């Protein structure tokens, strides 16, 4: 075990020095979720919280990857260093994945101040991977000024990105079908900025109007009114204006609700870690005692249902702890 400790330390200091190989290794360790992942996250965590975290989400084919390439270039022009995590789906059948977001970001690949990592969801729901938020921490700790996360092509309920990003950009493209259908409830509510990409298309203005109409129905009173911008990612038109808006939102967060959002995020992360830990410890114990299989069999045979079985288990566990 001595070995693992030193390895973690070595990777941590590499990450903090911005070493590309260490960053890459760190993300792999986190993705594979071994015991060292926890140690690694713990050791880099004090060095995070400096980067601005931006999420890009929206339906597949709305131009997220192309737009990211242009956004990164605009930030590079402004002298900022950038990390990108691009998420694509894992096949639920084979467990494999085809990660193709880099195809649109080729020209960024040799810029030493840009680090791009493709990531498969590994069947984690919500449009990102389980490892995404910790991979973002690695890039943050490595000193990137901003970290962009591209979600999988998202529809209505892939809203996990709000747990990662401080500024959420929702992209849409005209002509994708039943206009705003694709971004109704969920995505509509998490957007800090809307982008109608492929704005050179005829129906772009109609898409803008549709989003406007949806927003007006939204009666939530908030200090930040999500703007709707038009971009043509292929030519880069509208991208400087988009980056300006992102910066405006960053300043807004710093002044207004930033702290509150940070607290909310910390709370969610803590609750999730607790849930995972509690579940793990109970499951491990049951498996050791051979009771896990017994219970699952009972559920299949309809002698109990999953919720009741879980409740009974929890009660028993709590009683045991009290006795101890």
């Amino acid at each position: 075990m001595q070995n693992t400790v030193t390895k973690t330390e070595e990777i941590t200091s590499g990450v903090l020095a911005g070493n590309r190989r260490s960053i890459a290794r760190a993300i792999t360790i986190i993705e594979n979720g071994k015991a060292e992942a926890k140690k690694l996250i713990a050791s880099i965590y004090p060095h995070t919280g400096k980067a601005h975290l931006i999420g890009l989400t929206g339906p597949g084919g709305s131009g997220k990857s192309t737009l990211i390439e242009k956004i990164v270039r605009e930030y590079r022009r402004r002298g900022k260093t950038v990390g990108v995590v691009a998420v694509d789906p894992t096949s639920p059948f084979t467990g494999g994945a085809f990660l193709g977001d880099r195809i649109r970001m080729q020209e960024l690949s040799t810029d030493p101040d840009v680090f791009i990592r493709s990531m498969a969801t590994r069947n984690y729901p919500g449009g990102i991977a389980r490892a995404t938020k910790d991979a973002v921490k690695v890039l943050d700790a490595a000193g990137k000024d901003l970290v962009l996360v591209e979600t999988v092509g998202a529809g209505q309920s892939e809203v996990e990105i709000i747990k990662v990003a401080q500024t959420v950009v929702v992209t849409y493209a005209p002509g994708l079908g039943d206009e705003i259908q694709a971004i109704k409830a969920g995505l509509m509510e998490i957007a800090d900025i809307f982008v109608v990409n492929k704005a050179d298309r005829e129906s772009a203005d109609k898409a803008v109007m549709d989003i406007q109409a949806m927003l007006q129905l939204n009666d939530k009173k908030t200090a930040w009114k999500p703007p709707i911008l038009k971009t043509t990612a292929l030519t880069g038109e509208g991208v400087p204006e988009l980056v300006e808006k992102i910066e405006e939102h960053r300043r807004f967060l710093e002044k207004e609700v930033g702290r509150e959002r940070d607290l909310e995020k910390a709370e969610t992360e803590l609750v999730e870690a607790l849930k995972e830990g509690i579940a793990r410890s109970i499951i491990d114990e049951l498996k050791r005692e051979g009771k896990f299989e017994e219970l699952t069999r009972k559920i299949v045979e309809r002698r109990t249902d999953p919720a009741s079985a879980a409740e009974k288990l929890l009660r028993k566990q709590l009683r045991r702890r009290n006795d101890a």
Partner: protein
Amino acid sequence: MQSTRKIRVLIAKPGLDSHDRGAKVVARALRDAGMEVIYTGLRQSPEQIVETALQEDVDVIGLSILSGAHKTLFPRIMELINEEGLTDMVVFAGGIIPQEDMQELRKIGIKGIFGPGTSTETIIKFVLKNAHKRT
């Protein structure tokens, strides 16, 4: 946290030819075999390919070439891999590579060379056999 180890493969197209049917077939086959496959797109320089492999921390790099420039591009790629210390990554190649060049390419560290007509099964087996030697 559940522990899962996935094989990550980079499929890259060095050089100027734009025939990527073969590369895509291989990418797809490896994906269907449960691997995570990163595809670079066309016309990549050796620098772009090696930097991508580094950032993506892949286990295996597959190079597809049909332009005939393998004798200049592959040695450069292997040189960069050595410079960056990525020698634990396994490199294989596919495309149009004449018999008489193969030995030379093997000598510089290209572990597998697969010509036209190779079944995807053969390539999957090669990757499975070689990828897990990494820690």
